[in-house]
């Protein structure tokens, strides 16, 4: 039969050591960002007190030596913001990774196929409706309509793009563009007639973690975590899709089904994130793209890495947003993301043979 294997063992993917390094670094960054976020803020609360407060809330240990207001600030204001930043950042980066593989386009982001436009229309409509439904599961009308709007838009985009032979990627992209444009026109119209509510609308569209609460995290986090877990289990399918749909089919992948499942899971994660924090840009585009350049396209490593580094990025961005006077975090991610991206492009353009 065939010759025996070479003496040296082959590396068929990122080595365990390398993966540990990459993910370990990511995890460290997340923890560091979280710590910085807890300790830093406009009210001066010492790191010792902040740590003690968290310890106390989690375990009940320790004499209470701090004022109640400090505890409220750390546990009810900063902690939810940090955790929400981690959750949403993870969800957006993870979803961006999947869309970049699915659409075979390293410039794809989680919003391309309608999630942002749909969620925006839902949220803006809710902001302008004179209906107060109070809260349901800790979510207001804005969160619910944003979530529903995002999912519904993706469903519409996908259905339009579906043909007899399946859903070609190019059609999906065009459909996403068209539907998003239509929905964005709706948002613009609503903004025009929003009167006094315009500031609230713009604030939501720019994306912000200032409304984070434990209840909202309780809604979004399970959805994002479950989506991530299910997506991670499909790492081989994602890798196969990198070879193109025809070849992936020859590897035994049911490509059309995969498109539906991957789109659905990624849209779920995106919509859950957008529902609680508005449309924060760049995280879903830059994080997977950069990680792929740095660590390779193997999704077994890329997906969890995206999650971790996306988390850290958003927490850091939110810290910057808070310290810069409470500006929307979407502005900060754009300010970080865009120049970094330009630098990368320039580097690759100069380095290309």
């Amino acid at each position: 039969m065939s010759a025996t294997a070479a003496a040296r063992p082959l590396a068929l993917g990122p080595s365990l050591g390398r993966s540990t390094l990459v993910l370990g670094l990511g995890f460290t960054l997340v923890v560091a960002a979280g710590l910085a976020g807890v300790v830093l803020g406009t009210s001066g609360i010492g790191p010792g007190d902040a740590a003690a407060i968290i310890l106390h809330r989690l375990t009940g240990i320790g004499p209470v030596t701090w004022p109640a207001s400090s505890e409220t600030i750390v546990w009810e204001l900063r902690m939810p913001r940090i955790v929400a930043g981690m959750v949403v950042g993870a969800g957006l980066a993870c979803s961006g990774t999947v869309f970049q593989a699915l659409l075979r386009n390293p410039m794809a982001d989680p919003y391309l196929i309608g999630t942002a436009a749909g969620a925006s229309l839902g949220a803006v409509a809710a902001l302008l409706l004179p209906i107060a439904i109070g809260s349901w599961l800790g979510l207001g009308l804005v969160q619910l309509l944003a979530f529903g709007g995002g999912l519904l838009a993706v469903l519409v985009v996908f259905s339009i793009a579906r043909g007899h032979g399946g859903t070609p990627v190019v059609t999906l992209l065009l459909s996403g563009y068209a539907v998003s444009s239509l929905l964005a026109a709706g948002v613009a119209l609503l903004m025009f007639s929003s009167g006094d509510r315009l500031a609230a609308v713009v604030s939501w569209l720019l994306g912000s973690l200032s409304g984070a609460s434990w209840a909202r995290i309780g809604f979004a986090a399970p959805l994002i975590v479950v989506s991530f877990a299910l997506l991670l289990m499909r790492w081989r399918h994602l890798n196969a899709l990198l070879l193109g749909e025809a070849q992936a089919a020859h590897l035994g992948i049911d490509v059309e089904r995969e498109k539906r499942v991957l789109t659905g899971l990624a849209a779920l994660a995106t919509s859950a994130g957008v529902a609680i924090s508005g449309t924060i840009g760049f995280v879903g585009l830059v994080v997977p793209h950069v990680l792929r350049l740095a660590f390779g396209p193997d999704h077994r490593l890329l997906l969890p890495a995206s999650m971790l580094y996306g988390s850290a990025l958003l927490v850091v961005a939110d810290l910057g947003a808070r310290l810069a006077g409470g500006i929307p975090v979407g502005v900060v991610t754009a300010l970080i993301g865009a120049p970094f991206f330009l630098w990368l492009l320039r580097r690759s353009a100069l380095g290309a043979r």
Partner: protein
Amino acid sequence: MAPHRVPRVLLLPVLAVFAAACAAPAGASPSASVEPTASPPAPSAVAFPVTVTDDDGRELTIDAEPQRIVSLAPSNTEIVCALDACGRLVGVTDFDDHPPEVADVDDVVIAATVDVELVVGAEPDLVLAAGNELTPAAVIEQLEALGLPVLVLYPETLDEVYADIELIGTAIGQTPEAGELVSGMQARVEAVVEAVDGADRPVTLYEVFHSEGTTYTAGEGSFLASLLDLAGAMPLTGDAQGVLAAEDLVAADPELILLGTASYDPTLAEPAAAVETVRSRAGWGELRAVREGAVVPYLDDIVTTRPGPRIVEGLEALARAIHPDRFE
């Protein structure tokens, strides 16, 4: 930290002086000073707990007299100070400029953004917010979710200003002061109405803001329109948002144009320069008011930005600008 409690009986003459100082503008005007009454002061302890209903319809029960008040709008700050509770303020906005004492109070609203951490850190027992999204609804919700007592105020008429003053008075245990402040204001308004009674009502444009051919003025049925009316003018109004298109302005051809400060920087531009700017706008040169020199620059924007105790000052300034002959 408990404020120094001044015996009630000393407060009234202090308040009288304070009110007179606020109320009397430089130059002749119908003076209305508050007369110190002889009624005994009511100890505020019996007023609490008290339940009040704010402008959003929210019912709030205040158990004890608030000692740490956070104000999220300049008008609220001015009301609190006018009710002689300035010392109890622990958080204000960076737009607050009156009275001067508030400069020493920490800002919790910076560049129109409410910093919730700073609000919580100030440990308030009462938060006075502004309605109509001037304080974002999301922030109000968040503050309430954190257990802070919040009152939302948004007066759209003079009567509502009086009501809000009395509301705050009740909420912070300064009910008699509120009553007197309101009476004083009412008396001054009465005096203005009397002074302009019978005079011709000129069609008057109050320019709040002008940009790119669009003028922002008093909206139809707005607070500003009602003040212009009280001051003896026929207000030229825009649509519900106060937008007045150039054609409509020219068609209405106002007899008098009053310029607010929003479009101009009074520290840099001479009043005469502002009038020149107005004259040079497309179509404005032909207006009656411009040709006849009836353009009055730089009315303090109190009338649009401070629905509080000083609103009567603004009204008086309007009346003097519209009917100068009635105020010699």
